């Protein structure tokens, strides 16, 4: 589809020229497109299917300073069996924790097939020496993390120092070993959609397996239009290089309605190929219960209150 290709062996200037040569993004148009897709009506069988798909795409997340091993174990139990009363509910995709709690999660999820994702690299600010970030990553991988969510150096990106961001992602990619790398762009701090598209390409070219919108600690976190821009980027990147990269919106996705809007966006932008947990994730903590509540409404025909679902 796209004729864009990443120039081989480019230096800092070449990288910059390439990123600035990408087609621009018109904010009004992107917002409009996302808003229009959000009016799609997903009902009955499509809704039931979409809810299960959304559950299977959730990266169930706890990223608080107050996290304890107990809380993480409880979260893992929920991840494995989201609705204890209904065994037909699929497990979530992964549990996402800070690097020091990876060991606890790995042990708790042993045998479930659910991966442990860890936010390493001095999450959420990313403001630490590269050595410290790499040590963080290695520790998480050594403890059994199957996925690493790294944050990019937004300061370097915004100052136009793309080469530093590029080098850092490559270094982390290497430190990840077999673990999947999700690169968090923190689009709320990148401010423009042009930057979101450039950062997407930069991350994909440097080896990201996933590009992720946000840490969830900055507002705005994930939005439909910025996810649209990133979905266009992975679609174009595959057309240009043949490599398929996943997308993960994270932060602020709380309701089933929101989650379904994201699935519609995936379906009609990148395409149905991306409608799998291997290529699309929803980073969320409170979304799961709403999905469960809507699911039960569909199967039983009646609403049960929030107290019918477990808190952790």
């Amino acid at each position, binding site marked *: 589809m796209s004729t864009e290709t990443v120039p081989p062996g480019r230096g800092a200037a070449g990288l910059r020229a390439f990123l600035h040569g990408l*087609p621009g993004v018109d904010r009004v*148009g992107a917002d*409009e497109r996302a808003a229009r897709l959000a009016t799609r*009506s997903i009902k009955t069988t499509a809704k039931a299917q979409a809810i299960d798909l959304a559950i299977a795409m959730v990266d169930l997340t706890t990223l608080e300073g107050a996290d304890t091993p107990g809380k993480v174990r409880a979260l893992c139990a929920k991840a494995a069996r989201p609705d204890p009363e209904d065994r037909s509910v699929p497990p979530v995709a992964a549990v996402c924790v800070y690097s020091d709690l990876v060991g606890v999660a790995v042990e708790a999820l042993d045998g479930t097939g659910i991966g442990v994702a860890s936010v390493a690299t001095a999450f959420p600010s990313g403001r630490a020496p590269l050595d410290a970030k790499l040590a963080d990553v290695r520790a998480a991988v050594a403890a059994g993390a199957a996925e690493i969510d790294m944050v990019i150096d937004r300061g370097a990106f915004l100052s136009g120092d793309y080469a530093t961001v590029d080098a850092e992602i490559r270094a982390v990619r290497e430190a990840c070993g077999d673990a999947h790398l999700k690169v968090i762009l923190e689009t709320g701090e990148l401010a423009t959609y042009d930057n979101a598209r450039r950062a997407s390409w930069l991350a994909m070219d440097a080896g990201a397996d996933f590009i992720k919108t946000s840490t969830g600690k900055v507002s705005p976190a994930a939005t439909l239009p910025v996810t649209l821009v990133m979905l266009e980027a992975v679609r174009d990147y595959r057309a240009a290089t043949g490599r398929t990269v996943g997308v993960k919106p994270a932060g602020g996705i709380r309701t089933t309605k929101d989650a379904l809007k994201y699935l519609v966006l995936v379906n*009609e932008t990148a395409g149905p190929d991306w409608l799998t947990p291997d290529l699309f994730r929803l980073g969320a903590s409170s979304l799961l219960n709403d999905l469960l509540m809507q699911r039960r409404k569909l199967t039983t025909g009646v609403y049960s209150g929030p107290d019918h679902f477990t808190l952790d």
Partner: protein
Amino acid sequence: MDLFAYAPAPESRDVVDIRPSYGLFVDGAFTDGGGEPFKTVEPATGEALAEVASADAADVDRAVAAARRAYETVWGPMSGRDRAKYLFRIARILQERSRELAVLESIDNGKPIRESRDVDLPLVAAHFFYHAGWADKLGHAGLGADPRPLGVAAQVIPWNFPLLMLAWKIAPALACGNTVVLKPAETTPLTALAFADVCRQADLPPGVVNIITGAGETGRLLVAHDGVDKVAFTGSTEVGREIARTVAGTRKRLTLELGGKAANIVFDDAPLDQAVEGVVNGIFFNQGHVCCAGSRLLVQETVAGEFLDRLKARMATLRVGDPLDKNTDVGAINSAAQLARIADLADAGEREGAERWSPPCDLPGRGYWFAPTLFTGVAQSHRIASEEIFGPVLSALTFRTPQEAVEKANNTPYGLSAGVWSEKGSRTLWVAERLRAGVVWANTFNKFDPAAPFGGYKESGHGREGGRHGLEAYLEH
């Protein structure tokens, strides 16, 4: 593909009550028509919806006389402030009944409910609200301190935006103190007749708004009638010419809003994904039944291949089908006659050597349908590049320089609208200055607002509708 297929999500038809037959709305009451009644058809199924009266010469006389009486006794002498109250009331009723009217419009016209619900109806109400605001401020419209109404306005509107075109015509006419006799298109009369009911609900004095239905002959009688002071027409250039001939030499004032063959110019530095979206919106909105549709894509050669690939991928996601399904993007063609015309022109495109492409899509087995179609390798001399098709058919041409883009864009008998797509503001302005078109959209397309005047150059007609400029067509000053 089936992993996440959308289940049908049809809007309920229960909100509308379509009567088996309709009369003419004259002097505040529904009456029989002297002509042979005709049927209005649901384009999505081809089935008849209702029988509608046809106005003959005596009916036109009656309607014009009622409008004259209302003009002289009630509406003309009324203060602008009081006229505004009626217009605001109509606007609010339209909002309250917007769901019903949107469903009715989609049934009678074939357009997707997504458009009638999200575009048509909000704009219809907005036009009444906007003009209600002008009714008591006409002295500040830049047309002199005390502009006066013209009298009785004869208005003939097309089938592509039945209720919206009605609003464009009736709202400014009433705000300025005129009374109206309006003839909707014979294939889409139902929302105009529903609007008659809105007028009654608003207690609008009898005769201020009269709706007469019928085919071309009724329109001819109305336009030629001695008792009208102003003629406003939206429709084909061919009919527009005939009306201009009829009105020439009389005291009647005339505005014409006719056909178009708009260029959507995409430069190589355009925001490509949004440009694709704008091009899709420009030509497939309302099945291309839009006089300002961007039916000619002019794309810079350096990005033509990539852009057309993206466009095709996007077109493949368009959902064609039941207009009442909330997920439908492209609905039914309005009539069998229009479908035949579109098919004929598309065949001509193939015969003349352009390359035809449509995404794979299953069209319903009954009703009138045409798949979204893209022609590449089009030359200016092809019929599909010069004639208005008024359907979901896009002709793609290329250009090398901004000068060439402007020349090709202007190389048409029409001049209603154009689109320019570029991230470079200076270039956009340079191009826009040189385009002979009533509206030039930059990095967007098909955007309407009651405050923005709309109208054409050359064979796209004359006069403006909407905004301060639109008031001039209904005022003596």
